[in-house]
């Protein structure tokens, strides 16, 4: 047919909507859109009918009602008289605290285990293989519950620390107490409260921390300038000036001065009556989630790290040696930058998994976002639909932020070909 008509366009016929691949995709898409809209309309209609039958309005006004329940771990001020919205924020903060803690510990453990699994040392490599395979192949929920059970059933009660012949003692120069009610660690305190000084008592010592972080960022920037200067000198003269003591000074001196001005001191936990007071109490739920998530995810991170290092061709090491590079420099300048390209994307998706797995806090009573907004608030107000929508939305936003960071990183380190 095409041969006969040559360059001439064949006239449009209705059957071409089905049989001509140029138009067929339009037909399929219009059909899909139709089905999609129909499905959405059906769902919305059903929901509306069901909500009306139950006599429930749709809205988020319940967030401003009094919550009426307590949350054990509260990073910001909260009482049972606060609103559901505040309970949600407390839950979100607890989720983020746990996620950050678990990410840090999982990375440390995972990188160590991954590197050690590649070690030439036979016994170390075998031990790490056993660790990785055991933890990867058993559900994380079991690890969390086991840690929680160990904490609450095998650890000494606070009373065991008392008296002349105490059966338990505190660790690390009497600063850390591990009990069946949680782990007590020293709390960092400031005698100079900037928040109170500048008339913002709500912030508490938060302002102090902000100042410290700002100073650290400034030190970091200064150090970067110093290193750039050193490189410039090296390029000009061929000799790199010694910078390590300057770097150390840049970081430590301002921090030390600041801490002295603020009157930094630690408050140690002390046994008073039946329990420890003072310091920071890390509850069993937090410990169980933290340790459980970390050791489980670390096994996956270890495999990512191993894969990343193995992915670098041996020729790269040999080429670096041929250029006369030392083993340390070879690792730092040749192997690691290339391995990072393989390691970091799966590493970030492990962080994403940790963040999502914090929702297992329910199993050990950790009051994260899912237990506050998605648990008690929903049960008390009966607003399942709105609560779950909000919950999913928050998790979705967190995930999208993390994956945006990942995409940014991926694009930055991507091999530029042609």
């Amino acid at each position: 047919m095409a041969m006969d008509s040559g360059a001439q366009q064949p006239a449009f016929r209705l059957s071409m909507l089905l049989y001509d691949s140029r138009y067929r995709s339009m037909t399929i898409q219009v059909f899909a859109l139709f089905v999609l809209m129909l499905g959405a309309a059906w769902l919305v209609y059903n929901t509306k009918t069901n909500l009306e039958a139950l006599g429930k309005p749709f809205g988020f006004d319940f967030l401003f009602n009094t919550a009426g329940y307590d949350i054990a771990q509260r990073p910001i001020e909260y009482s049972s008289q606060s609103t559901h919205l505040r309970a949600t924020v407390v839950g979100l903060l607890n989720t983020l605290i746990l996620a950050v803690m678990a990410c840090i510990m999982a990375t440390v453990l995972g990188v160590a285990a991954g590197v050690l699994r590649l070690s030439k040392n036979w016994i170390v490599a075998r031990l790490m293989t056993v660790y990785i395979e055991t933890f990867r192949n058993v559900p994380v929920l079991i690890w969390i519950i086991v840690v929680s059970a160990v904490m609450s059933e095998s650890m000494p009660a606070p009373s065991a620390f008392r008296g002349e012949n105490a059966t338990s003692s505190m660790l690390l120069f009497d600063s850390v107490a591990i009990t069946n009610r949680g782990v007590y660690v020293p709390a960092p305190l400031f005698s100079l409260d900037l928040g109170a000084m500048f008339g913002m008592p709500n912030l508490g010592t938060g302002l102090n921390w902000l100042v410290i972080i700002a100073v650290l960022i400034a030190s970091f920037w200064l150090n970067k300038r110093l290193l750039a200067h050193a490189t410039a000198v090296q390029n000009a003269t061929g000799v790199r000036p010694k910078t390590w003591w300057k770097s150390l000074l840049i970081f430590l001196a301002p921090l030390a001065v600041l801490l002295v001005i603020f009157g930094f001191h630690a408050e140690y936990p002390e046994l008073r009556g039946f329990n420890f007071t003072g310091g920071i109490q890390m509850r069993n739920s937090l410990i169980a989630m933290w340790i459980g998530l970390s050791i489980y995810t670390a096994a996956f991170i270890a495999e990512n790290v191993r894969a990343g290092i193995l992915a670098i061709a041996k020729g790269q090491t040999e080429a670096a040696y041929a250029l006369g590079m030392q083993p340390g420099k070879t690792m730092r300048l040749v192997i690691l930058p290339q391995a990072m390209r393989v390691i970091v994307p799966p590493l970030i998706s492990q962080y994403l998994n940790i963040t999502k797995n914090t929702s297992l806090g329910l199993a050990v009573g950790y009051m994260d976002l899912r237990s506050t907004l998605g648990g008690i608030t929903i049960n008390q107000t009966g607003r399942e639909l709105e609560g779950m929508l909000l919950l999913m939305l928050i998790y979705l936003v967190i995930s999208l932020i993390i994956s945006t960071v990942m995409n940014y990183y991926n694009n930055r380190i991507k091999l530029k070909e042609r």
Partner: protein
Amino acid sequence: MSDTHAQTVAFVRDTMLPPEAPPTTQAGAVKWMRENLFSGWLSAILTVLSLLAVIGIVYELAPWLLNSVWNANSLTECRAILDGASGACWAVIRVNWLQLMFGFYPSDLYWRPILAFVLLIVAVAPVLFPSVPRKLMWFSVVYPFIAVWLLWGGSVWGPVMVLLGLAVLGLFIMRAAEPLGTVPTSAMAVVLFLALFFNPPGWFNLDLGIFPIVQNIADLLGGIIPIELRPVPSREFGGFMISIVIGVAGIALSLPLGILFALGRQSNMPLIKWISVTFIEFIRGVPLITLLFTASLLLNYFLPPGTNFDLILRVIIMVTLFATAYMAEVIRGGLAALPRGQYEAADALGLDYWKAQRLIIMPQALKISIPGIVNTFIGLFKDTTLVVFIGILDPIGRASAIRATSDWQGIYWELFIFIGAVFFVFCFSMSRYSMYLERRLKTDHR
């Protein structure tokens, strides 16, 4: 010349010496240890530390395992038998293991899940291993219906008619696709599907009495020739049985759905691509628990008033959707890794889209993504433990219930070691199988 030589050298060896044994530090166990355990001071420190760790663990574990108590009815009894010594109380498993396996499934019907499990092995064998006769594949196709009937019981005609209905549908698609073309066939297949399994006139409040056709025929046949197993309601399911049911169903369904969404995401039709991306990113962005809670709390809002369907079925759907999104991303990776030339070669041969996918693209893309696919399967199987949060008594739920009884309060290691070991066996064998499959399908000669 030779004479002088003969005079100056008194003796010339004309046979080879036998080779000497290497020095003791360069042979046998000593050499191995020097190379593998003490190759440097760091390595030596690590070796000593590892040895200390191993010895410490064995020192703690050995008496605990050696003093195991198998016959007791409570933890107090166990401790009385042990008399202060350290020892494991495996009696808790011995007493409760049937519950850990089957939940509250009626004990006189245990043969049904066991038979279903044995048949499962028969059904997956031809899929997993090429040495098993190909004809068994037919059994694999029929197996899901047998399993549903065995596990839930009820009339045999339900599953049989659903199977027949699907067979009719499949036959129609195969016969009609050539003469009619893809799009009309699909549209007609959808209509046929709705007519067979649903009640389309019922949506407009018409009751013709013949829809859903499959269900009505099944009821009719059940009235004439009643072949029935005692029905078991879903709430009596539990233990590892429920993990395996959800896991196997999720695995079997998520792979084909994942392929569809991966293709959708690669599609050059903007709308299809947009739908796939939204679905995948939404599911991957929220924790599985929120989806499970949606299944248990919210589904009643989204369905017509009065609809109420099985909790296990809802969970299977949600777990499948969750795994589908991850599967789609894994397969997309495989598709992206294929050289463009493969697509162009398929086009050049004049294959249409589905033929190209089936014969050229998918076999290669799936092969590349085997490790990722099996990882997703393993993740899915481990994630079945989360159903405990919506009140299904999976092994962890049973374990918590056991730990809450007065007899076994305070026990945890034994229970969780047992549960963990069972999960480990399943997941570890899956990962080993994936390695075997990779080796078997390897066609390059590196």
